[in-house]
C-alpha cells in the first residue's frame, strides 16, 4: 500500500480506541504519513477520523476512561511515552478545528498565545512570528492594520485563517486540520485550500475534508475510513479514480454517504 521510500513522520500501528461508554471508535488502524504531503482522511460520519486526529496530538487525553491500544510514533518516538511533555508534542503537531475558535482577545494575542506559553517572550520574536504566520495563512494583508483589535470582529473565513496562522506560529512539523472549511463560503474555502497547497512544501499536513470533492482536490495520498477501520490507502490520483476496494468505490461515487 505505502511505497514512498522515505521515513514516515507519523507511524500508526494497530491502533484501537474505545470511548468510556464502551463504543469502539478505532479498530486496528495502521497508517504511515510521510513528510511534505497532504494526507487526507476521508469517510462518512462516525468513521473515526476525528478520533484518530485527536489521538495523534493526544487531545484524546481529555476523555476520561478511554482505552487506547497500539502505537503512534512521531519521528521515531512513541506519542504515549511517559517521558515526553505533552505540551511540547502539541506544538509540533498543531491542530485546526472545524469551528473557527479564536480565543478571546486580539488577533495578536491569539497568534502569540502558544509562543508565550512556551516561554518565548521577546516582543521582536513574537511580532516576527505573528507576521510570518499571517502571511503563510494568506491573512496578513487583510489584518495587518488591526492586529490589536478583537479576533471576534473577523469574518468566519478570516477567523479560520487566523486559527491556521495560530498553529503556524508555533512552527510545527505537522498540521492537523479537522474539517477546517466546513462552515466557510467557497471563496474562503478556496483561499484555505490554496494556502495548504503552498504550505505542504514546508509542513506535513493531515486533512479531514468536508466533502469528497475537497478530498480529491487536496490529497497527495489518502485513506478511506469506515466504521473505525482503514479500508484503503493510496495515492490521491488513484484512490478516487480507481479505488481497489468496493466500499471505497461506493463511497467515492456517492452510493452512500
Amino acid at each position: 500500500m505505502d511505497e514512498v521510500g522515505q521515513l514516515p513522520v507519523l507511524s500508526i500501528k494497530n491502533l484501537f480506541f474505545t470511548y468510556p461508554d464502551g463504543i469502539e471508535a478505532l479498530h486496528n488502524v495502521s497508517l504511515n504519513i510521510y513528510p511534505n504531503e497532504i494526507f487526507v482522511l476521508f469517510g462518512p460520519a462516525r468513521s473515526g477520523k476525528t478520533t484518530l486526529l485527536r489521538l495523534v496530538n493526544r487531545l484524546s487525553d481529555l476523555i476520561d476512561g478511554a482505552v487506547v491500544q497500539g502505537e503512534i510514533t512521531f519521528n521515531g518516538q512513541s506519542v504515549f511515552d511517559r517521558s515526553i511533555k505533552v505540551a511540547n508534542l502539541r506544538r509540533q503537531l498543531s491542530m485546526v478545528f472545524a469551528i473557527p475558535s479564536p480565543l478571546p482577545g486580539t488577533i495578536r494575542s491569539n497568534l502569540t498565545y502558544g509562543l508565550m506559553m512556551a516561554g518565548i517572550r521577546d516582543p521582536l520574536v513574537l511580532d516576527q512570528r505573528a507576521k510570518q504566520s499571517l502571511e503563510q495563512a494568506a491573512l496578513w494583508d487583510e489584518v495587518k492594520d488591526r492586529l490589536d483589535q478583537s479576533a471576534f470582529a473577523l469574518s468566519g473565513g478570516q477567523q479560520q485563517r487566523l486559527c491556521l496562522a495560530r498553529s503556524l506560529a508555533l512552527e510545527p512539523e505537522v498540521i492537523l486540520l479537522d474539517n477546517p472549511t466546513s462552515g466557510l463560503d467557497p471563496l474562503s474555502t478556496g483561499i484555505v485550500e490554496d494556502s495548504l497547497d503552498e504550505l505542504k512544501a514546508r509542513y506535513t499536513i493531515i486533512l479531514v475534508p468536508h466533502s469528497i470533492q475537497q478530498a480529491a482536490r487536496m490529497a497527495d495520498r489518502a485513506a478511506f475510513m469506515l466504521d473505525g477501520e482503514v479500508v484503503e490507502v493510496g495515492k490521491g490520483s488513484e484512490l478516487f479514480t480507481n479505488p481497489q476496494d468496493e466500499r471505497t468505490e461506493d463511497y467515492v461515487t456517492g452510493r452512500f454517504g
Partner: protein
Amino acid sequence: MKRQQTQRAAVGIISSVAALVVVPIVLVILFIGIKGVSAISWEFITAPPREGMTEGGIMPAILGTVYLTLGTAIVSIPLAIGAAIYLAEYATENRLTHWVRLAIVNLAGIPSIVYGLFGLGAFVLFMKLGTSIAAGSLTLGIMTLPVVISTAEEAILAVPQRFRVVSLSLGATRWQTIWHQVLPHALPGILTGVILGLSRAAGETAPLLFTAVAFYLPELPRSLLDQTMALPYHLYVISTQVPNMPLSKQYGTALVLLVIVLSLTLVATLVRTRVRRRREW
C-alpha cells in the same frame, strides 16, 4: 363553562398567593426603612454607644462587622476557589469526588449554631485563640465555603470548553490553560459568588455568639485576638436585653444592617449582569 371558571379561579388564587408572598417583602423593607430612618445620623454611624446603649451610635458594631467580613473573605476565598477549580477542572467522577460533593452539600446544610459550637471547640478552645476576631472569622469563613464553592464552580464550568481545548492544542499545560483561559473569564462569576457569600456572612449572628462577640467593649479591637462587637449581635441584644432602648434606634440598627447586606447583594447582582452583557462569545 365550568372548566373555564375553574381556570380563572385557579389563576386568580395563584396570583393572589404569589402577591401574598411578595408584597410583604416590600413592606418589610419599607417598614424598617421608615421606622429606622429617624435614628440615622452622622453620630449614629460614627460614634460608640453610651448610657448602656440607649444613647450614642453603633460604630463599633459596624466596624466589627467590617472586620469579621474581611476575615471571612481571607479565610474562605482561597479555599473555596481552590476547591471550585478542583471540582471543575481536575476531579474525575470517582468516589473521592462524590464524597467531596457530598461534603459540600452537607456543609451547606449545617445549622449556623452548630458552626458556632464547632468554632468554640476548635478555634476558641483547642487552638486557644479565645473569643476573638480570628476565631470568628475562621468559623464564618468555613460556613461561607459552600456558597462560594458552588457559584465559583458554576462560573468556571460556564467558560466554553473550546477555549480549553484550543489552549491545550496550542501547547499550553493544564494549569496554564486554567490560569490564562479559564479563570480570567470565570472571574466575574466567582466575584459574584464571593460577594454573595460575604453578604450572608455579614448578617450572621449564631456562629459568632461564642466565638467572637461581646455585648459591650469599651475599646475598639486592636488585634486579631481581641473580641469585637458586631451589628447582628448588637441588634439582638439591644432589642431583647436592654431596658428602655429607644425603638427608633433599634430600627435604625436593623436598617443599617439591612442596607449593608442588601448593598452587597446588589453589587453582586450588578457584577453578574454587567459582565454577561460584555461577553464576546
